[in-house]
């Protein structure tokens, strides 16, 4: 099974100042990533591919809990290899089962949370397209199966922000990431859900 992603950029009309806890166990979810890593991911995702309309990759993260907050702390990024893209004109990118298998192995071996990441471009808080939502719901639970100690999910980047969703297990609602923090000089925080 491959993961497919819609190519068109879509910026959801999300109020950047909107507050509120995400669904699922009444928790707030904060995703933190160093600005250098985020810049490297954006640069990688902007690289053209021979036939795919966009690139995708995987972010590994450590997890921490603080009262009612789940902290997702990005560690590393692995791009999907050129040869793991499949030809499919109906979507922006389709990746092979081998690419997903490798990411699942990463989750198991290093006890990390895995987040599928792609980019829509534009400014402001982006949103998932309908295709993104459909495909995320198909393949993210596979990570939950092999590494149930962690949460897993998907993230979409714009040029200035990010938006994401988290699978806590196979049954619970999938909450959205409430807040993002880009740790650099300066620190940038934004609300996304």
């Amino acid at each position, binding site marked *: 099974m491959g993961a497919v992603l819609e190519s068109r950029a879509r910026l959801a009309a999300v109020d950047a100042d909107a507050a509120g806890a995400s669904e699922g166990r009444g928790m707030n979810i904060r995703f933190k990533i*160093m600005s250098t890593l985020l810049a490297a991911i954006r640069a990688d995702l902007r690289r053209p591919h021979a036939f795919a309309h966009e690139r995708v990759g995987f972010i590994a993260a450590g997890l921490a809990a*603080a*009262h009612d907050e789940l902290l997702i702390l990005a560690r590393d990024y692995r791009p999907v290899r050129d040869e793991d893209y499949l030809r499919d004109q109906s979507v922006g990118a389709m990746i092979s089962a081998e690419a997903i298998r490798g990411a699942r192995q990463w989750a198991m071996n290093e006890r990390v949370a895995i987040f599928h990441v792609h980019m829509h471009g534009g400014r402001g808080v982006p949103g998932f397209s309908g295709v993104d939502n459909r495909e995320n719901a198909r393949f993210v639970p596979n990570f939950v199966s092999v590494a149930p100690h962690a949460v897993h999910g998907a993230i979409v980047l714009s040029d200035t922000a990010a938006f994401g969703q988290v699978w806590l*297990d196979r049954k619970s609602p999938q909450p959205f990431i409430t807040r993002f923090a880009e740790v*650099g*000089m*300066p*620190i940038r925080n934004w609300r996304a859900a």
Partner: protein
Amino acid sequence: MTRLDRQSFLGADSNAILETATIGIVGLGGGGSHVAQQAAHMGIGGYVNADPDVIEETNTNRLIGGTLADVAVSMPKVSIAERLIRGLHSKARIISVQVDWRDAADDLKRCDVIIGAVDGFKEREQLERFARRHLIPYIDIGMDVHDLGKKGFLVSGQVILSMPGAPCMRCCGFITDERLEQEANRYGAAGSRPQVVWSNGVLASTAVGLLTQVLTPWYQNPPKFVFLDYDGNKGTMTRNARMELLRDHVCPHHPPDETGDPMFDIRKQSFRPRPAAAPEPARRWWQRIWNRLSGRGET
């Protein structure tokens, strides 16, 4: 004109950024109390203040906001800091934890920046490791007084900004195994540590400057790694030579794959809101009378 207008050069959104920021201050004595005061002046909105101690008479030469009346009632240092902050920012979000900072880990994990004003190298290293694990910039301040024999005394100190990914306190040679061993061997026999208000103030002010750069830099590309040496005798704050040497250094001591809580398991987490802080206990009747009779005031 609002009270923060004169710092508007920090950026159009700086007031909002400072208001929504939460900082952790570990150690509310000579250095940390200065930091709390200045952060409140700047309009920083959130605080996690951690210090297990109460004020003693020997603290009053340097603990900003502490009074002799506080000594009489053994006021916790975190309560003095809270009073100080509220005097400038009545609606500040303050979590005062009168325990070892390790017991307040959940509160500190949620901070944007942690400032350490602690005494020992071991504690510094633990704080830095904690901050790195949670991708939190850490700013360390410390001072010491060295006996130079016939030449007098040397007042010195350091301010270090330890950003995730950038060089750490081991990278820059400030924390070494030898220093940790020396400290461990002298444990319990250190005696009184000389401290003075002015050098604490210089170090804390410098740390608040770095804090401001991390939150709202007023110029582009400030350095991610800062190691400044203070010479109190000369009255100078200089860049340590290692600041340049380590400019592009990748820290090997805190690798990225250490982020998060070790052996975290989502299935075992309950995610409960932080319990509301218990109201501060009222001072006992004899404490209030004693303060009034001794002229130390009572409110």
